């Protein structure tokens, strides 16, 4: 190593932490060149298809596959008999059959698999499978399901009466009384994640009994665990690589076609591709839990919350999925981000014969937030108080105690968020210029030129936990390598973090650039050749995988700097890496990083763990169950055609504490997208289930917002910095979905003066004279 050179200008690397670094998948996605999992292809591959039960609840009397097997071009027809390992799987409770054998518990449950040389042949073979069902009356009402007299759908379950989990939280005085009491009953329909890239993947047998699976998923290692178990293989013989993911939102946490595709590939010893259609996708993944919530709020005449009682019932559907964690959130956050001295909270999640429900963006907090925010408005009304003032008065802060007894430690700027959205400029009143239908309820459908239109403004604030809770250690692993080639330093980052569109690949690049002062960073495809990164869910990847990458980079930096010091006077703390140079604070540039590295290659692996959490006490619900909390608030301005019940969301304003915006543009993208999903739940998105059957499994009748439904937004991104995370980051993805829905509902109530206790709101809800269906109004 040469002696110190003269000082030269060091330019910081571009695309580091805090910048709007370009995403590597951005241009390919916009130009249509990005390879999604549905684009996978292998020489000589077969196509898989799934035969599903048409009945919500039935006994399987017989399965005859002979005719299907005899069809030319068919390579395999498999049933439960062919499952090599565990016959059931599941995220929390292994209660879901890989293929149903004695009975089916929801419409669309997989029963038989087919592999054929053409997708059309596979479809025809599916029609030739003869399954004889004996139909049973489906159990479709979760409250009926809990009745002692009702049939038990899972006799092996640990709880009686179809109960998946009951979360019981008691704090303060259960008999507390208050001056002013309001109660309400609220219901939520079943929302779909509606990702645009349906379930798909490609399984390639390795010829030695093992298999490689390329698949769009959210957590490679939890897939691996369940997949290896069902295939009866050790984990080293099953390798999973993330394929291009077209959105996830929770719907890819559970397995869909993973086991099926691998079974077919191993059976035929050929690569097999599976790809669901949009319709099949509605049956191929879990949905957001529908909810029924009974609330009672008590407050002093001055507006201080005295107590909250809530009974929340979530419909878990046929299998447990992540229901136990969803009900935990719904119950833990049932009172919202407020200080409430006394709380009596009961959350139940129940098996029924409806479609299985599980993870979706907001995960339990969405349901609770609609409940507590509706109640806060109702309470404000009863008190004759401004709804915003009531919220600010009771707002939680750092140091507040949750009903679970946990003290909130990071920033909890509930008041500041509400004040921020309150103080943003309001949108213009309906413009008086030439008629522009796109600005009116009904849009270009030309239903009003202003008649019956009333404007309303409403607020919502919500919060949820970041990362997994209740003692779960969802660590993340990063392997980082630094070497130099052609005089240029190069960093390679390898994690199993699933990029589902949210931008975790870019985040990893940005962190490595900043930490090592190297512009050229390559993020390897996520796969199971490196240890788990945990799930891309619970708004946790920037915190957890971002944290792991930073720590691994730091370890490398220390080694590089220590090596660079050899022969120099100084201490490693004096040196830093910037702009591809090794810099000493006293001596200036001491070396080109590439020279300092020389022929060496530095590699470090770091396993990042969040702080320890604890289970909730089963009797009292007390416990430090959560790592950290993220907060957001929305203000909605809506126009309602009060005669037709049609809605135009005019504007959404939001404020959110993201801790630190590693990539401000990505943060805004998450906030806008999450808000749009919340808007969808507020005014249109509902899987309609009747007697256990899905009535609208298509984008013709399951409506999601278009660009004409989603209004412009004002966004205030606060960066208050969490003391427990790297860079102070918090999760960003979920909060916008939580507080947007109740804000819109508040605005709709404000405009229409109707109770609107069900979401999504449908046009006729504005016309009911009471809270429930009946005669339509004027």
């Amino acid at each position, binding site marked *: 190593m040469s002696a110190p050179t003269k000082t030269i200008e060091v330019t910081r690397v571009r695309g580091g932490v805090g910048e709007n670094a370009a995403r590597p998948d951005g241009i390919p996605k916009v130009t249509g060149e990005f390879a999604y999992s549905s684009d996978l292809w292998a020489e000589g591959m077969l196509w898989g298809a799934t035969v599903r039960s048409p009945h919500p609840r039935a006994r399987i009397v017989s399965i005859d596959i002979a005719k299907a097997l005899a069809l030319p071009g068919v390579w395999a027809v498999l049933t439960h008999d062919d499952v090599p390992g565990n016959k059931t799987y599941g995220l929390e409770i292994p209660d879901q059959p890989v293929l149903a054998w004695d009975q089916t518990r929801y419409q669309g449950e997989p029963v038989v698999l087919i592999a054929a040389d053409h997708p059309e042949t596979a479809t025809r073979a599916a029609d030739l499978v003869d399954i004889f069902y004996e139909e049973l009356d489906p159990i479709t009402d979760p409250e009926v399901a809990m009745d002692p007299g009702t049939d038990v759908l899972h006799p092996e379950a640990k709880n009686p009466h179809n109960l998946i989990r009951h979360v019981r939280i008691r704090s303060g005085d259960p008999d507390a009384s208050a001056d002013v009491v309001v109660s309400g009953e609220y219901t939520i329909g079943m929302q779909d994640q509606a990702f645009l890239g349906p379930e798909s993947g490609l399984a390639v047998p390795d010829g030695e009994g093992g298999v490689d699976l390329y698949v769009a998923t959210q957590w490679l290692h939890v897939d691996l665990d369940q997949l290896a178990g069902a295939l009866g293989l050790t984990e080293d013989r099953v390798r999973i690589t993330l394929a291009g993911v077209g959105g996830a939102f929770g719907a890819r946490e559970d397995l869909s076609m993973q086991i099926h595709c691998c079974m077919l590939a191993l059976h035929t010893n050929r690569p097999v591709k599976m790809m669901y259609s949009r319709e099949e996708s509605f049956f191929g993944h879990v949905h957001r839990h529908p909810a029924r919530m009974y609330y009672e709020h008590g407050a002093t005449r001055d507006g201080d919350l005295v107590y909250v009682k809530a009974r929340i019932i979530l419909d878990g559907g046929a299998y447990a999925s992540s229901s136990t964690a969803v009900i935990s959130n719904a119950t833990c956050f049932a009172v919202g981000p407020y200080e409430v001295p006394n709380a009596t909270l009961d959350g139940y999640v129940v098996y029924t014969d409806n479609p299985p429900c599980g993870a979706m963006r907001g995960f339990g907090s969405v349901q609770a937030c609609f409940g507590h925010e509706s109640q806060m408005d109702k309470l404000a009304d009863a008190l004759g108080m401004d709804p915003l003032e009531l919220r600010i008065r009771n707002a939680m802060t750092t140091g507040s105690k949750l009903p679970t007894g946990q003290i909130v430690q990071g920033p909890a700027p509930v008041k500041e968020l509400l004040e921020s959205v309150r103080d943003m400029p309001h949108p213009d009143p309906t413009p008086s210029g030439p008629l522009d239908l796109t600005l009116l309820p009904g849009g270009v459908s*030309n*239903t009003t030129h202003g008649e019956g239109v009333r404007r309303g403004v409403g607020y919502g604030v919500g919060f949820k936990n970041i990362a997994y809770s209740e003692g779960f250690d969802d660590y993340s692993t990063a392997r980082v390598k630094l070497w130099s080639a052609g005089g240029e330093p190069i960093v390679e980052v390898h994690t199993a973090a699933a990029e589902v569109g949210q931008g975790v690949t870019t985040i990893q690049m940005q962190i490595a650039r900043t930490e090592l002062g190297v512009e050229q960073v390559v993020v390897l495809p996520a796969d199971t050749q490196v240890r788990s990164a945990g799930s891309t869910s619970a708004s946790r990847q920037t915190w957890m995988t971002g944290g792991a990458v930073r720590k691994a980079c730091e370890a490398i930096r220390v080694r590089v700097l220590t090596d660079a010091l050899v022969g120099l006077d100084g201490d490693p703390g004096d040196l830093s890496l910037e702009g591809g140079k090794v810099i000493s604070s006293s001596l200036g540039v001491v070396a080109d990083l590439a020279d300092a590295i020389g022929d060496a290659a530095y590699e470090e692996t770091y396993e990042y763990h969040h702080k320890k959490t604890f289970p909730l006490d089963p009797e009292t619900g007390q416990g430090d169950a959560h790592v950290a909390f993220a907060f957001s608030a929305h203000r909605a301005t809506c126009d309602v055609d009060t005669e*037709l019940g049609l809605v135009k969301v005019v504007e959404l304003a939001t404020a959110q504490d993201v801790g630190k915006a590693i990539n401000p543009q990505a943060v805004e993208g998450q906030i806008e997208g999450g808000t749009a999903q919340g808007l969808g739940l507020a*005014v*249109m998105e509902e899987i309609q289930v009747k007697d256990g059957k899905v009535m609208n499994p298509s984008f013709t009748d399951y409506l999601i917002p*278009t660009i004409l439904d989603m209004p412009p937004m004002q966004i205030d991104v606060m960066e208050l910095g969490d003391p427990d995370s790297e860079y102070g980051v918090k999760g960003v993805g979920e909060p916008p979905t939580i507080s947007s829905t109740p804000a819109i509902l508040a605005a709709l109530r404000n405009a229409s003066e109707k109770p609107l206790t069900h979401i999504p709101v449908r*046009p006729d809800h504005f016309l009911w004279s009471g809270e429930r269906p009946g005669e339509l109004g004027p």
Partner: protein
Amino acid sequence: MDFFRPVSLAEALELKAAHPECTPIAGGTDLMVELNFDKKRPETIIDLTACSELQEWSRDNGTVRVGAGVPYSRIIAELATDLPGLAIASRTVGSPQIRNRGTLGGNLGTASPAGDGIPPLVAVGASVELASTSGTRSMPVTEFITGVKENALRGEELITAINVPGSRGPQQFSKIGTRNAMVIAVATFSVALDLEARSVGTALGSCSPRPLRASDAEAFIADEIDWDGRTPLPESAAARFGELVADAARPIDDVRGTAAYRKHALKIMAKRTLTWTWEEART
């Protein structure tokens, strides 16, 4: 599957005569959905998009002859003055992509109760032109559509054009959907004033198996309107008109809405659109 792409109407009709069972495809925005959902498996498809005769429109003696293959985007751009009701309805169809591909012929071919192109045709008494190698016949749209997704087309025939009387007064169209764009109609209403004949034409969409006129409402309001003095319409008359329109409907409950809501919505839409047309006529 066989696929034909004739380059003239004559050739298309020859093919249709030779293969009466074959399925025509125009924009494909209905047919491809049916194929995708495996609801139809045609043995033979005949693509009409290269038959230039079907992509033309012309004026003849107060009537506009709209080729079956004219897409919505052209109806909006080229026929908004001649056929304002149809143009307003066309604007409500799908998205820009769908409006570029989708045709009026296809809308009639599908004959869905929710076809948005149909009510504006019914309200003005338009007729459908059907052709085969043995000749051409014509029938009112109301007769052409015989039931839910059923029409009077014979195997050897194609829809060649729709003859629509040019507007003789203001026209309106209004559609309820639960999203502000790209939505299947929950209920629609069309109204057309004929200032020369002093009559009012109406049609209801998505509210009955076949397209429907509200004859009682038409007769009632034709009497109420002050055609000579052009005085404002009393609100009570407009409201009564709305009720009579709602009475004519035969709606059902389905995933898109309830029968009760559909009737209610018709009442409001009829009242509003009538008021808009009459205000336009007066001023």
